[in-house]
């Protein structure tokens, strides 16, 4: 089992969700986060004083899936979330030790 954590631009969420749905991945968890990468923040002015906006709003998408689906899912996310401009985001893949479906108490891949 692997977990994909994808940090994407917020307006790309619908597209990414649909792209994953098309390859059969129907479950995910989404959180609102702030972040920045090598792209720096920018400066604004309020009532005569400058302030920098470093953190930009992003969406973190988490999906846990069987090992054989990771490559297809990653490719789908990249294709849907890419704009070609800085700030498109990143994808991280980690290994998951176990999973449980709470309703039926199934474990392992059957729980995904």
């Amino acid at each position: 089992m692997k977990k994909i954590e994808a940090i994407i631009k917020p307006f790309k969420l619908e597209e990414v969700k649909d792209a994953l749905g098309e390859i059969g991945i129907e479950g995910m968890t989404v959180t609102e986060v702030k972040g920045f990468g090598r792209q720096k923040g920018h400066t604004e002015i309020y009532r005569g004083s400058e302030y920098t906006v470093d953190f930009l709003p992003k969406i973190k998408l988490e999906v846990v899936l069987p090992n054989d689906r990771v490559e297809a899912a990653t490719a789908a996310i990249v294709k849907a979330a890419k704009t070609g401009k800085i700030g498109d985001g990143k994808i991280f893949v980690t290994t998951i030790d176990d999973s449980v479906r709470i309703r039926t108490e199934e474990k392992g891949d059957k729980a995904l």
Partner: protein
Amino acid sequence: MIKKLITSIAALTVFGALSLSSVHAQSTNAMAGMAMTNAPEAAAPASTDPVPDPGGIKTGAAGDAQDAGATHFVVSAPADLSDDDKKDTNKVAAYTDAKKAADEYTAQAKLEPLAVKLADTVGHNRVAVNFMWTLVTGFLVMFMQAGFALVETGLCRAKNSSHTMAMNFMIYPMGMLGFYLCGFAFMFGGFGAIGTMGGYAGLNHEITINIAGHPFGILGWKGFLLQGAGYDTAAFALFLFQMVFMDTTATIPTGAAAERWKFSAFMIYGCAIGTIMYPVFGNWVWGGGWLAQLGTNFGLGHGHLDFAGSSVVHMQGGVIALIFAWLIGPRHGKYDKNGKLVHPILPHNIPMVMLGTFILAFGWFGFNPGSTLAGTDLRIAVIAVNTMIAGSTAALATTLYVWWFKTKKPDPSMMCNGMLAGLVAITAPCAFVSAGGAAIIGIVAGILVVEAVFFFDKIRIDDAVGAISVHGVNGCWGCLSIGLFADGTYGDGFNGVAGNVKGLFYGGGLNQFWAELIGVTTCFVTLSLLSLFVYFVVEKLVGNRVSIEVEIEGLDIPEMGVPGYSGVQMDKESETPMLKA
């Protein structure tokens, strides 16, 4: 705990003493009035004081009937000439003319008694129109409390929203009670005849000192707890109207000291504002006191004029705001150790700010035109339009000034401050200037407020909402502008001075300007002293500023117990900025 006990006992003692003393002084009136409804004359105090009319059944009669030019229907005989007067040929001629007119009227009245009876109804109707006007415009001004609450809360952070709203909410009853207990008596106890609403003249005790043969009205002393001489229907209408003006002043400092002012400290201030802080200067300008008398005493135009309150309401509020914001200190993290503004604190809800500004602009249609206290004074149309124009030119001037010359973006919070600055500035001159004058006054206000906002940040006075710049600075400008732009089309008889009000640009010379300058300077000095006193008393009793832990957490839960937005994240930028080491 001990401090709380002492504060409460002190407050109760003051209120108790005041109420007991006034009840005792008026007890003969009250008891007699209750027992003998048919014979109010018997209940009158021993002196020749006018009889109050709480039921409203004796207010408004033939004496109030007048035409558009304020010529009265009833022509009374002129006062007899003294021996000295008889030597003045002009005075004798005037007396003869007046006596002739009075005799003619009396003869006509004998021939047409029904017309005289009708005049009673006509006079009553005129007075009724003026009552309606005063009360309804007063209701509009009361609604401005909501406007202030929304503007201030929107400009502050979400974690302080429940506290900021609560201050703006509680100031209404607190200020009102103070004004009811003694503030109104201090400010209007010597007001004299309420001319537009039936002429009741029972508020006739102004404490006056004589300096070099000139009377200096200092404080009123009648109408405490709206009892006795105060329990008259016209006096009540005057009270309501003036109370909502007082509350406008009262709510201004809550914005400047927001996000760090203890609620208990604010409550004690709330006791002080309606009782004494506002009424003193108010009496000097509107209560027949010495600033109004600058015209009759020293020939300075019509004395310090302030039609609807640029100095009495807005500048008073602005000066209190200045002192409190200065003494309470800036919000944590906004300025660095050298006083440079390093971290602006952003508003959490701009739509709320702009909605509040519109509510204020709407309420201002009660504030300015209502100050005629007469729906029959048709200058109300000019006043209303001048108000509208100044607010608009100011908003536009601010927006363009900020956009083109300052920050390269049209900042909505400055737009709102701009409109309000124009409205504040036109408040004093609204009745005395033309549309062109109003437009210019607004443009100047729009630019002044921007410079003032930047200035106060530069000297490290953290005004969370721009209250000092909007109300203090432009309240001052508004009054001074009377001395420049008053165009001589209105104001005959104001403060006892004949002739319309004329400013420098219309051939009136500088006298009116000097009167205004004396007035605004007095405002600044007096309110600074009063504010310093109140601030230090409160500091001794409960302390003014919350602890740094409370400031970081947000005042809503520690101070009020209830968050403004429970379960809803309204503001991700609510963190208190931390200074770099």
